[in-house]
């Protein structure tokens, strides 16, 4: 779950990481009032995406009137696919140096990694490796102050600035660990005179950990309603622009099913990973989500492992009996309890195939798409 910049900064403040003075506003009037209190400000659109500056979502204002005008010009606009309804109005700070500081998960090393640079700001990912200071953190030891001081030294910082930067690293690591974050990022971390502060911030919280940190962090939602409905069922669902609805169980097989369908000339209407081990009811509901999107046909590819073929078959039979299924369905069904599943489908007048090749060829034929071969 991504947090808005203003939420990230609230968490930074909680952990003692300095941020500029600022106010969250939703109208030009509030923006003007904030500017009256703060002085010269920067007006920043709050969206769950980077690249706001280049897209015109960050503007400067020296007076309350200018702040209101800038707010007016941003609010309600579409930025990178998000409609702006919230702004952060912040004091304009003098920037002497822009640093970059992030902690995320290094999958290869299976541990947290701190990434920092003395050349922060825009286009950070274009930096060459020698401009970066990277260090894996041992979760058993944590990021100790001595290591943070060493990293600050490697960034070329000295004196009070080095001390503040190293303290911010330690606090950011604490936040990262305690809030189950996948990413905490400060870009830029600004040196302004003799103080160091977080001028922008990104935090992603691990969705799987929301059950334990959810009450202590603000919440955001960037999924569509249908995606949320699917997620509530434990299903990964992403809308695509084709006409053949696809369901499979497992991220890899779902991707491969889309690949094969496309290879044979079909156009998938969605990505739906019904997950492993879904029982009768969740599978029935997943099928209803597919039907709700009005596809030309439905392609189902189930290789039963933790998912049992008989459960899947029962779900399809149930939906057919209660709601009715008015589009062609092509089902590939093998694996755990396969015989029982095939029998149940047959009893309900649904044919099934043993290979994905047969199933894909069939669905492409039904929908009238020309096959490649």
């Amino acid at each position, binding site marked *: 779950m991504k947090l808005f910049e203003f939420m990230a900064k609230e968490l930074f403040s909680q952990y003692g990481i300095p941020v500029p003075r600022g106010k969250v506003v939703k109208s030009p009037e509030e923006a003007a009032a904030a500017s009256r209190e703060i002085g010269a400000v920067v007006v920043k659109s709050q969206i769950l995406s980077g690249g706001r500056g280049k897209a015109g979502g960050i503007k400067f204002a020296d007076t309350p009137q200018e702040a209101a005008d800038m707010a007016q010009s941003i609010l309600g606009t579409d930025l990178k696919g998000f409609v702006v309804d919230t702004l952060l109005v912040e004091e304009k700070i003098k920037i002497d140096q822009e640093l970059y500081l*992030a902690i995320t998960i290094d999958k290869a090393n*299976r541990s947290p990694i701190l990434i920092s640079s003395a050349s922060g700001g825009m286009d950070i990912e274009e930096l060459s490796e020698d401009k970066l200071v990277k260090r894996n953190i041992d979760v058993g030891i944590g990021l100790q102050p001595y290591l943070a001081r060493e990293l600050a030294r490697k960034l070329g910082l000295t004196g009070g600035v080095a001390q503040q930067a190293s303290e911010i690293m330690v606090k950011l690591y604490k936040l990262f660990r305690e809030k189950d974050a*996948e990413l905490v990022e400060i870009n830029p971390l600004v040196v302004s005179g003799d103080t160091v502060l977080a001028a922008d911030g990104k935090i992603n919280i691990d969705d799987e*950990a929301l059950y334990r940190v959810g009450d202590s962090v603000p919440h955001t939602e960037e999924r569509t309603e249908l995606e949320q409905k699917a997620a509530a069922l434990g299903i990964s669902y992403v809308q695509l622009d084709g006409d053949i609805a696809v369901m499979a169980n497992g991220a*890899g097989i779902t991707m*491969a099913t889309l690949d094969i369908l496309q290879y044979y000339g079909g156009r998938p209407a969605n990505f739906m990973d019904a997950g492993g081990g879904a029982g009768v009811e969740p599978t029935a509901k997943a099928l209803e989500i597919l039907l709700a999107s009005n596809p030309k046909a439905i392609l189902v590819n189930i290789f039963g492992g933790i998912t049992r073929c008989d459960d899947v078959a029962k779900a399809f039979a149930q939906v057919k009996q209660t709601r009715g299924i008015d589009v062609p369905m092509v089902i590939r069904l093998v694996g755990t309890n396969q015989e029982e599943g095939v029998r149940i489908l047959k009893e309900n007048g649904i044919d099934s195939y043993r290979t994905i090749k047969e199933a894909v060829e069939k669905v492409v034929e039904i929908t009238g798409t020309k096959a490649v071969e």
Partner: protein
Amino acid sequence: MAIIIDDKTRVVVQGATGKQGSFHLKQMLAYGSNVVAGTSASKAGQSVEGVPVYDNVFAAAEAEQPNASIIFIPAQGAKAAAFEAIEAGIKTVVIITEHIPVHDAMEIMALAEIKGATIIGPNTFGIISPGKCKMGIMPNSIYLPGKTGIVARSGTLSYEIVYNLTAAGMGQSTVVGLGGDRVPGLSFIDLLQRFEADPETENVVLVGEIGGNAEEEAAEYIKTMRKPVVAFLAGKSAPPGKRMGHAGAIIERGKGTFESKVKALAAAGAKVASLPWEVPELLSGGSV
């Protein structure tokens, strides 16, 4: 031979009395795995399919000397279950559980490294050495003992590959699921090294997918391998994924795309299949 598990493996099932645990305990027994114990905090003293259930892994270890554990404990208790297995001296731990918080996974891996334990998963279908031992949730029927080692990120996709191999009469030495989570216990390289060293394995199938740079790293090792490697990758048609801030971009450095992976693997000498059913032909030395 085979890698990691074989007919000497003594399995304890953590969470043996739950719905998934008891179902798959039965399936593993049916496959012929030597399941010697189960654990359940509330149902110790009972048995599941004739397998005695103990309070915890320490008690099971004392009574039955298991040397491998498979975990069917829900996500909120999975870290403790893995710690318990490791602290009780189990050296191979298969974590089936999905939705484990990634910070828990990092802690599990850190402890496993300290204690010299091998973690398979989390969010894996498990591991099987056909004809010898199965620790996982894969269907029993599709495997055939043989000479091909398989390592996969995704479960069901590996079944698809195995299904095609078995149909072509090509058996498997060991099939391993790395697990679909962000921090798995083993990498492609860890498994490729074991397969390269295993006298019973003649060739290897790598089943990968887009995202991360594990396949690109594997390619570096494949360059040094004696045994042939065939790869299949999923995700060619997928829209670009969401990236994890600048930090993610810095780590991946442009790797992670379908094209990047195919290119790296091909350059390393691996044959890359376009469709799952092409894998047997490529393994046989043919082309498609």
